């Protein structure tokens, strides 16, 4: 009797992170290829939204051009692979991430001259600038990027002689996601990450305590660019194809939707938001593609009206309730 009670207690105390990890590891056993592919995409966008959350939710920077860094990395890797015959993962992938960070370095210098809503507008403009660059059909650049057609034909990577296919690439994406999300998680808990949250809460107080708030925001912007770049490289190897639509304001807006639906300032909410939107798109959007934007809009309004903080805080609340249930009174 006593043993079963302890057992029950422990079962209920499983953390959501543990259950989630188990679910993601075991997933390919139960589902077909289409689903594996869908979850690969969820992981990639999850990482991308989490990197956006570091800027929006933790630092208080309203970055609205985040898809640009994702796109720059994806395009760089695609162009190197397709046009320069650099098929080695160890060259093409880091080059993509490097270009994303480099772009964040330069664009951050300009964007961080202003704050608040002006920062939002200038990052939006930068996103459109990158969109314009990859969309242009004139000159040598048009030949490299494929202009409005985009660039495709990037195969799954080959690492240490192992050629990935859809199923194994899922695990590759999962490992990359796990590593990056843990890094992000540690950063948010670290002295640096807490300082970012302090700057979000009161920049005046942070400056009065000795913080160079500009430098913090700049470093955060580059970290955001780095993880967005990793997501971009993961995406191009997953999808094989990227077009200007994946870079522009529509893509950045979708990331914001995922972030708000998942919950800003929660980090893991990014994965939840990505999962909810992409699963909905798969089921409902596949059912009535022409109504998909309408359904997306209704979901967004619903979350804003009833779950202001996003889904993840609601979920944690519920989990705690379940956790309390069946536990001996103390």
């Amino acid at each position, binding site marked *: 009797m006593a043993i079963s009670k302890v057992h029950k207690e422990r079962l209920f105390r499983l953390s959501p992170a543990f259950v989630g990890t188990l679910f993601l590891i075991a997933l390919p056993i139960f589902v077909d290829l289409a689903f594996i592919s869908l979850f690969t995409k969820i992981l990639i966008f999850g990482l991308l939204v989490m990197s956006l959350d570091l800027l929006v939710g933790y630092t208080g920077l309203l970055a609205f051009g985040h898809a640009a860094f994702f796109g720059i990395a994806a395009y760089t890797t695609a162009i190197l692979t397709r046009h320069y015959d650099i098929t080695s993962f160890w060259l093409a992938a880091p080059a993509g991430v490097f270009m994303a960070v480099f772009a964040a370095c330069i664009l951050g210098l300009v964007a961080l001259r202003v704050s608040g809503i002006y920062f939002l507008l200038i990052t939006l403009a930068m996103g459109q600038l990158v969109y314009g660059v990859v969309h242009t059909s004139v000159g040598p650049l048009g030949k490299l990027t494929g202009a409005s057609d985009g660039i495709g034909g990037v195969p799954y990577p080959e690492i240490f002689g192992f050629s990935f296919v859809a199923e194994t690439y899922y695990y590759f994406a999962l490992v990359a996601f796990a590593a990056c999300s843990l890094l992000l998680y540690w950063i948010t808990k670290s002295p640096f990450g807490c300082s970012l949250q302090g700057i979000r*809460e009161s920049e005046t107080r942070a400056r009065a*305590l000795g913080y160079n708030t500009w430098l913090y925001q700049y470093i955060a912007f580059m970290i955001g660019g780095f993880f967005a770049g990793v997501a971009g490289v993961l995406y191009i190897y997953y999808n094989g194809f990227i077009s200007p639509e994946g870079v522009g304001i529509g893509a950045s807006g979708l990331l914001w939707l995922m972030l708000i639906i998942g919950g800003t300032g929660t980090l893991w909410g990014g994965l939840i938001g990505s999962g909810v939107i992409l699963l909905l798109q798969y089921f409902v959007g596949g059912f009535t593609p022409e109504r998909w934007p309408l359904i997306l809009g209704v979901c967004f309004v619903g979350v804003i009206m009833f779950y202001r903080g996003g889904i993840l805080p609601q979920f944690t609340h519920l989990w705690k309730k379940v956790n309390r249930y069946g536990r001996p009174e103390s």
Partner: protein
Amino acid sequence: MDVLRVKGLSQSYGGLQVLNNLSFSLETGEKVALIGPNGAGKTTLLNVLSGFVPPLSGRIHLLDRDVTDMPPHRRVSLGLARSFQINTLFPRLSLLTNVLLAIQGIQPTRYRMIRPITAYKDNLTKARELLDLVDLWGERESPVTVLGHGQQRQVEIILALASKPRLLLLDEPSAGLTSGETGSLIQMIRNLMGDTTVFFCAHDLDLVFSLADRVIVLYYGQTIVQGTPREVQIDPRVREIYLGIEGEGGQMPR
């Protein structure tokens, strides 16, 4: 040695001259009060001294270094700290995180991206010492917004003290406190300051007369009187500013 030397400081907002060719200095360990009617330029002076507002003209020397063009965070690393008239804490962060952020503000640790902020044991010990001073260690996990206004005022000062400053600027430390709360605040400041130079502005004359060694009276951006609290109290010009033309009734509060 002078901790702070200010020479010919001027600042204006549009056509309004807020600070008018202001010069004074603060000696080590001095507790100096800055008083004056509303709009005299007290908060502006503190903002200029801490680097949040650049002066139009004049020089500021902090510990013999010219800091006139230095941003706020570099002045902090030289030993300056300030509090705010309106509570300026990190509202949604826990009390402990507030204090830890204040402690690491001048340490290289503040850029570390490994290990949680609470894993830095030295800082945790310091945070406990600071929070024990105001009996708030038990509340460390709550967000600061759940604390009462009086407790938040205390935290405001604790955060400024965390960097062990040489010069502490307090902007209306007793703003919005009841007289009982002000009494315990005075006690706390007395116990904590030791040989820190404190420059504070206040409307509350209890606070001024129980803490200050010297009082500077600011009126339309100029120092009209400087002296011990007693001297200032009986000065006819101060009476005039605070109470109107002498002889028309009223008395300077004691």
